[in-house]
């Protein structure tokens, strides 16, 4: 500071802000209240009704499976990740999303392992939050599907009451006992292998066999609309996925109605709603540009129809999303925004 003169007013008035109190921070000095932890926790909270719904439909073991997946994810973040990364909520969210894709009878140790693999291999290996290419929850789920195909496709029937402990819930690691639960086929499985259709109303409300969180389309849509309103998810992604699935399946259904189900069944069955609203919209693994979001969503929608109709599996949402995740860097590069005052395609 320069030598101060002692004018009549000098020093007295603004003294409150001096004495080393003046902060020097670069502009802007205002900040929107949104933050990364707030986004993660808000998404988590919108999933809680789904957790409650699955507990109501599948019994307490649903809650246990989901908790186990969260435990695995958070534990991996704690053991392998940088300190303090748990409070941002991203690991808990990954675990919760993974848990919602699992069947209620899954042995708990598998759920823990899936959460750990999702965070460890799906996220931390790439460098942690913001660096991963593939949706970590789906990486965990894909791992489980490959490692334990039977356990992952054993769907207990819904509505067997609250306190039921079905299947091998407490089986020791690598000991899978006999399956003694009352199992039911998923609507997609029924359709694919037995060509039996399930009423769309049951699908919409969620009282059908399947993964924990994929049963109630209604709750997922409500959560999605809220998140889109808060701008915590890019609405273009679910809208384009659902539009392409509806359009493509209607067209194919029109050609062979006996073999291929129509749009309402396709939209509300399986993991499509959960995938379109909560998985495909993961900010890290989806495009940053809005035009990219349309392309990405359309690609997922087309792949879902392709896999469900002609693939070897009854459900294809997980692989469709993981496949399109891989293209996100290219989509982003190809859809750079047109800079103000330039023409699209003009040399930079």
């Amino acid at each position: 500071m320069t030598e101060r003169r002692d004018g009549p007013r000098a020093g007295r008035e603004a003294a409150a802000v001096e004495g080393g109190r003046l902060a020097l921070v670069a502009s802007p000095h205002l900040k929107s209240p949104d933050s990364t932890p707030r986004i993660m926790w808000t998404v988590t909270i919108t999933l809680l009704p789904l957790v409650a719904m699955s507990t109501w439909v599948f019994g307490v073991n649903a809650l246990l499976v989901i908790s186990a997946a969260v435990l695995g994810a958070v534990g991996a973040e704690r053991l392998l990740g940088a300190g303090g990364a748990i409070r941002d909520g991203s690991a808990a969210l990954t675990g919760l999303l993974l848990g919602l894709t699992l069947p209620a009878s899954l042995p708990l140790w598998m759920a823990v392992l899936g959460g750990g693999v999702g965070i460890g291999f799906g996220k931390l290996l790439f460098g942690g939050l913001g660096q991963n290419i593939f949706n970590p929850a789906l990486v965990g789920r894909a791992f489980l599907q490959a490692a334990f195909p039977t356990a992952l496709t054993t769907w207990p029937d819904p509505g067997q009451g609250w306190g039921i402990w079905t299947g091998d819930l407490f089986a020791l690691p690598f000991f899978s006992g006999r399956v003694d639960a009352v199992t039911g086929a998923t609507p997609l499985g029924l359709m694919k292998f037995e060509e039996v259709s399930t009423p769309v109303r049951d699908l919409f409300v969620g009282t059908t066999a399947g993964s924990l969180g994929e049963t109630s389309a209604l709750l997922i849509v409500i959560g999605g609309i809220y998140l889109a309103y808060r701008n915590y998810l890019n609405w273009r992604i679910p809208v384009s996925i659902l539009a392409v699935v509806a359009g493509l399946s209607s067209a194919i259904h029109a050609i062979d109605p006996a073999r291929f189900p129509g749009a309402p069944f396709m939209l509300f069955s399986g993991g499509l709603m959960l995938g379109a609203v909560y998985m495909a919209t993961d900010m890290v693994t989806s495009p940053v540009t809005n035009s990219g979001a349309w392309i990405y969503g359309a690609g997922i929608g087309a792949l879902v129809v392709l896999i469900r109709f002609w693939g070897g599996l009854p459900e294809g949402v997980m692989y469709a999303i993981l496949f399109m995740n891989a293209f996100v860097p290219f989509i982003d590069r190809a859809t750079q925004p047109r800079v103000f005052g330039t023409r699209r395609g003009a040399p930079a």
Partner: protein
Amino acid sequence: MIGLLEEWLRGGFRHGIHPPDHKEATSAVPIRRMPFPSEIVLPMRQHAGAPARLIVQPGQRVERGDKVGEPQGHVSVPIHASASGRVAAVEWCPHPDGSQAEAVRIEVDPHSAQIPRPRLVPRWEDLDADQVRAAVKEAGVVGLGGAAFPTHVKLQPPEGERVETLIVNGAECEPWLTSDHRVMVEHPERVHFGIRIMMQCLGTSKAVIGVERNKPDAVARLRETLPADLDIEVIALRVKYPQGAEKMLIRAVTGEEVPSGKLPVHVGTVVQNVGSIAAIAEVFETGYPLIERIVTVSGPGVVRPSNLVVPVGTRLRDVLAFCGGCTPDAREVLAGGPMMGAPQADLDAPVLKGTSGIVVLTDAEAKPSRVYPCIGCGHCLDACPVFLNPSLLGKEAQAGRYAEMEAHHLMDCMVCGSCSYVCPSNIPLSQIFALAKGALRREAGRRRAAESAAADGGKAA
């Protein structure tokens, strides 16, 4: 009905953000005059372009309105004494941009009547366009919105370009600032007179005043007082930051985009802020050069938020003291608004011609926030008014790939701060971009110097 719809569609640009405007603190507070402080500091560097050259000696007596600095070159203006007194020193003073600047310190004569010599600026009615430009330059008039670009340069469109529309910037989109708002409410005729002067000078027949809709009283007053013989339209614009940025305002008013790297005149427009236009009018009305300006002093850290007429060169400390001082939890003093204003380390820095406001923030706003990695939410792409990809640019900056940033139009960034405002991971994007732009400019300067040296060497050989 269709007219209303049209007006609504017209009144905006794409993207941008909606920060809380906080204008209620001073939007209804009439402009008051601040008493002369005991001393004035006048830096020679107050405007865009070349700084003025000192022409006074320590010990010399100056009257209010006397020139203390001469312009150097075309893009430069003189500096005038804003109070009568004795030149106490020619020294370095803290500049609001954080540097030090050569300045004249004047000890204000407490017994002076502070009346300038009569008619330092001639009557406008007797002048032709060239003489008006010369008079505007001699009066030291610059844009008062912040950039302080010399007004006489704007009044002279480049060879071969025609100005169709004069766009008057009454957006005042920075939160807390209300000085332009109060000018429009209290002195609408002065705004219209300034527009008349500029239109005559530019040879345009049409002017549009763009005002954001959060200032309905300003829109009403400007419409009530429209002169019958001029084609002036007052447009109510949607409230959005940064509406007051030149290119955004042109887009909002005319629907046209100024090409990247070009000036507004390429789409037939000149943009001038209302405060500056009122200042032009005032200069010709009173005959005094630009020696004072209207400053909003506001923010949660100020005891009495006010709109003040402040002599240019008054120290920030003295202005704050006149407003009752700062609250005990005051933490940051900004010259300008909270989005683009510069934080002050030293309250001895003076109010300059381009200082539109002094905003004092408290601990609550100045709280440092934790930075998270980019999660690719894309909010910054939706906020950027020039459609850049701040997310990508930020990652490139982190990797030190400045050349790629340039290829991705970094130089179109005007550091408005919208991306930083929305970033949920609190990444200081606009600060990173300001640094990168500076580095690229310095590098370009070095390259040019090396090239011209090589060319000279070639000639010598």
